[in-house]
């Protein structure tokens, strides 16, 4: 039953997985790391992956691990903000707006990096902090957040993150600007 639900979830939200893994592959290639296996989409968890060697450089690891997360999150927020007004505030019948909302939410729901990748960057962070690497200071709260969400994957925290980003951020922004 869970496998069927997972397959349906992956099929419905596939753009998020594809974009995350495409960005991941792009950044891993930019970091000149060896790539062992790439899967852009599959119907069982993890829905996509790029198996590659880990970099010992903090900068490369930061971008390779958090880059896809940041891009997916930014795209989710942008798509949902573009569609928020007609869908939720004004309730104007606009199928395109719903399409953008679906895209945004699927990107947000698959923003989280793999647990192993997060663990690797987490292990590199104390050393980088000791070297006063500003990127490590920047990454620490992000890493803490992503690790908390990662720990809650069993209760679908990764999905909740996408929904929260797609619904609450535009709502907060609208209320702030109103």
């Amino acid at each position: 039953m869970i496998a069927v639900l997972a397959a349906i979830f992956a099929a419905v939200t596939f753009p998020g997985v594809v974009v995350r893994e495409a960005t991941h592959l792009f950044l891993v290639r930019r970091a000149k790391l060896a790539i062992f296996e790439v899967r852009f989409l599959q119907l069982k968890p993890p829905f996509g992956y790029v198996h590659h060697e880990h970099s010992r450089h903090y900068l490369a690891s930061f971008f390779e691990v958090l880059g896809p997360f940041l891009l997916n999150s930014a795209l989710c927020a942008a798509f949902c903000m573009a569609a928020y007004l007609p869908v939720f505030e004004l309730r104007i019948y606009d199928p395109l707006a719903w399409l953008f909302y679906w895209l945004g939410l699927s990107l947000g729901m698959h923003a989280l990096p793999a647990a192993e990748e997060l663990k690797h960057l987490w292990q590199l962070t104390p050393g980088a902090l000791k070297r006063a690497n500003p990127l490590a200071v920047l990454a620490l709260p992000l890493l803490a957040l992503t690790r908390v969400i990662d720990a809650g994957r069993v209760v679908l925290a990764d999905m909740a993150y996408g929904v929260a980003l797609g619904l609450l951020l535009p709502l907060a922004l609208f209320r702030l600007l109103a």
Partner: protein
Amino acid sequence: MRRAGCVVCKSTIPIAKMYVIGGTLLCETCATRRAQDIKLTGKEPRIERALDPTICAECGADKGETEWLKVGGTPLCFKCRQRFYEVPFPAWTLVTLLAVFAVLGYALWHGSVYVEAGRTLAEGERLLAQKQYAAAADDLRRVLESGSESERVFLLTVKAYLLAGDYEHARLLMNGRTKFEASGALFNEVMKTWERAVKANDLAAEAKQLAQAGKPQPAAAKMREAARLYPEMASLEAEARSIEAQPAGAAEPPAPPAAAGVRR
């Protein structure tokens, strides 16, 4: 090629032909036996192929006594290593990423059409909170005219009209809507005000009939009652005063103020 001894049977064989179970280097026969023993305990054995650092794990190229460079802990020859470092970036993924950005650009442009309506809604809500009801009603009306089907916006507009004393516009809006899905605080508040306004306007209509029949005293009392019930509509009070000023027995009432005299 390097050789090593099996921990159990002590036979010396090439490392590439050995296995690692639980950190122990074993020959194939001993590894099979160990795996079966573990399975009997109900656990799943974790069997790994032993890696000879002088033999490429991918193609088996032997470098004699010199070790190959390792990638992710695995010894690989130059050719195989290159293969892992030169994984192509498929054209379709690039096209997908570019398409997503193009769609985002379109989505933002498409969304900008609603920004004006959103801004007007926010302004209307702000004016409503500041009790500038007439101005708020104008803004909220424009949001409805932009195609909004939001019940909340509808109720806010009706509320603004009612609190501005503009019963006629509120009536026109309410008469065009027969069904409501909302049942929250806003809905209850609007319905309460609406019922009050309807009752007041019914009384005003009755008062006018009485005034026309030459009964200014009861007409004035009814109009006063209407004005008391719906004080937001200032014309009711003005009309009550006007009827009171009318001499008893006069058949025609004075000309009513522009906003008064509306009926449900």
